[in-house]
């Protein structure tokens, strides 16, 4: 079987092309173009999935030059899983955004219309990143994603959003440069930018290690790990809802996925004890810190944003859990991937629901949302499903992920991490119950279209449907793997760079 030349590049080129198109089209075409474009972009992932499923991993080199000189794209099970995840999120966000941003009354372009080009470019960048196998290409795509993220935040147009965008851009620039310095050192040590070729060069080497450490530091800033998270909550909470969904649902996962890739391309040989411990401690601190701050917020979107800080902390525990070469290692990785994806899906859904409430009620102040459940039952239900995931309660993927990691922490006898994980679950329960306490009040404040000083235009029926359906579907998607849990797991093991476990197989449980 010969792969078509566009197989791996189409998922990148198509969103970029739609980015240009939506920049040029007149305003009243945009919602439709956005929806159709999203469907096409998502469809571009289907052939990739088919290929991986039937023929295994695939290398392609855009530019026609193979790895040491050119850039290689590499599609394996993990990349494919994340492509599917991106496509699903992309579909949901696009349909939601098409309903969220109202068409301008006289057909002229407004600032909202810039959402589409920026979002499609972000989409293309994320797909490119998941496929990339080249250290410098990763730098460029990371910058592409951050800069378009800044633009997306700016769509809100408030001074708070501008300030958040400024901070976001500053951290992105610095993180990118730190990462780039690391890439330069690694390149000078091993003479290649390709991840796979780099991991073949087994001898650690001083310069390579230093470069790896710098790259890790850069990615940690991008991933918003605990002491470097300062920019995240403002940016995520002050943006408009579709943008929050993009940033919290998709963009946050990106740096983590890249870190795992680099980890297995040689990072794990470097400082085998110190670095994982450090990441574990920072992750734990993030879980607690994010949770505590989420408890103190008075706005729904702020609560969700701080919850992202907390959940990102969980992901980094994975590095601490695997440094013992214990038999349960693979379990941790599978768990982390499940957790990443489920967090992305539910955080996207939760921000969509929060945006719906904000639009319907004119504010996302918790106090003003009293009794919302009566008026907007579906939105609150989405939030409920999301909460089940965030807390890590049984029928959800979040539970599966956290359970796997918990189990690994027992295996490696890291009781401290186990306590933090359980405590983090309790914390998230606390801050989410605080939200629901308000939402589920039997009676709210006197309802009226304008509250909090903002004039509210009532949502039309079709607008509500188009906004809530994607949110609901994304939230429900996290419950699916309970039925088909072997499917993603089987996909993950194709061309696995990570030692994914075969925990499902009978007798395979360590």
């Amino acid at each position, binding site marked *: 079987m010969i792969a078509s030349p566009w197989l791996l590049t189409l998922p990148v080129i198509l969103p970029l092309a739609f980015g240009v198109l939506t920049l040029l089209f007149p305003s009243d075409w945009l919602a439709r173009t956005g929806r159709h474009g999203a469907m096409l972009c998502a469809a571009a992932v289907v052939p990739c999935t088919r290929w991986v499923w039937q023929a295994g991993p695939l290398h392609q080199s855009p530019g026609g030059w193979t790895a040491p000189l050119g850039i290689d794209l590499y599609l394996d099970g993990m990349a494919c899983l994340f492509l599917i995840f991106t496509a699903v999120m992309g579909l949901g966000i696009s349909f939601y955004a098409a309903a969220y941003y109202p068409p301008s009354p006289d057909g002229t372009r407004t600032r909202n219309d810039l959402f589409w080009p920026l979002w499609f470019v972000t989409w293309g960048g994320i797909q490119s990143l998941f496929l990339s196998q080249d250290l410098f290409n990763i730098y460029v795509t990371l910058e592409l994603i951050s800069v378009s993220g800044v633009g997306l935040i700016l769509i809100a147009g408030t001074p708070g959003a501008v300030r958040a965008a*400024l901070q976001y851009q500053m951290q992105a620039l610095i993180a990118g440069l730190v990462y780039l310095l690391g890439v330069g050192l690694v390149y000078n040590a091993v003479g290649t930018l390709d991840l796979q070729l780099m991991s073949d060069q087994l001898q650690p080497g001083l310069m390579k290690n230093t470069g790896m450490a710098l790259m890790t530091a850069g990615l940690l800033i991008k991933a918003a790990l605990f002491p470097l998270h300062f920019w995240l909550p403002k940016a995520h909470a002050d943006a408009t809802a579709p943008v929050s969904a993009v940033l919290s649902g998709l963009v946050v996962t990106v740096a983590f996925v890249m870190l795992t890739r680099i980890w297995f391309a040689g990072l794990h040989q470097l400082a085998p004890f110190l670095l994982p411990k450090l990441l574990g401690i920072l992750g734990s601190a993030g879980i607690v810190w994010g949770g505590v701050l989420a408890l103190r917020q008075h706005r729904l979107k702020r609560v969700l944003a701080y919850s992202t800080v907390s959940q990102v902390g969980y992901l980094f525990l994975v590095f601490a859990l695997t440094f013992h070469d214990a038999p349960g290692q693979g379990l941790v990785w599978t768990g982390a991937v499940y957790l990443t994806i489920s967090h992305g899906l539910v955080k996207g859904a939760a921000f969509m629901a929060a945006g719906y409430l904000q639009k319907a009620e004119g504010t996302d102040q918790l106090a003003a949302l009293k009794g919302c459940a009566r008026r907007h039952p579906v939105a609150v239900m989405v939030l409920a499903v999301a909460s089940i995931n965030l807390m890590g309660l049984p029928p959800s993927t979040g539970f599966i992920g956290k359970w796997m990691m918990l189990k690994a922490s027992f295996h490696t006898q890291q009781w401290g991490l186990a306590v933090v994980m359980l405590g983090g679950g309790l914390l998230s329960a606390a801050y989410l119950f605080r939200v629901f306490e308000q939402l589920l009040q039997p009676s709210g404040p006197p309802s009226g279209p304008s509250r909090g000083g903002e004039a509210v235009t009532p949502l039309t029926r079709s607008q509500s449907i188009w906004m809530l359906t994607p949110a609901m579907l994304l939230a429900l998607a996290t419950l699916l793997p309970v039925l088909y849990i072997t499917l993603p797991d089987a996909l993950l093991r194709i061309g696995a760079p990570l030692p994914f476990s075969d925990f499902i197989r009978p007798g395979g449980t360590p």
Partner: protein
Amino acid sequence: MPSSALIYTLAGIWIAVIGLRGVLAEEHVFRKIVASNIFGSGVFLVLVALARRAPDGPPDPVPHGMILTGIVVAVSATALMLALLGHLHDTDPDDREDSP
């Protein structure tokens, strides 16, 4: 005897470090922007000088290409931050401190 590439590599490292210190330790956004520029220049200088490490023969063109890309990315990021800063100044008179 040290080669000129080594001299510039070391200079680049210290320029980068000075810039990084500026970004982290300063509060004023404009100074941070200037510092991030210096940080970037230092990083680029390190990479270019490292590309010249081999004592004879031409320098390695791959880092040169990387840095060309890096310069353009850095200048666009700088421009974006400056535009944001100016905008904040105009629209939000309460926020003249410029410290986030």
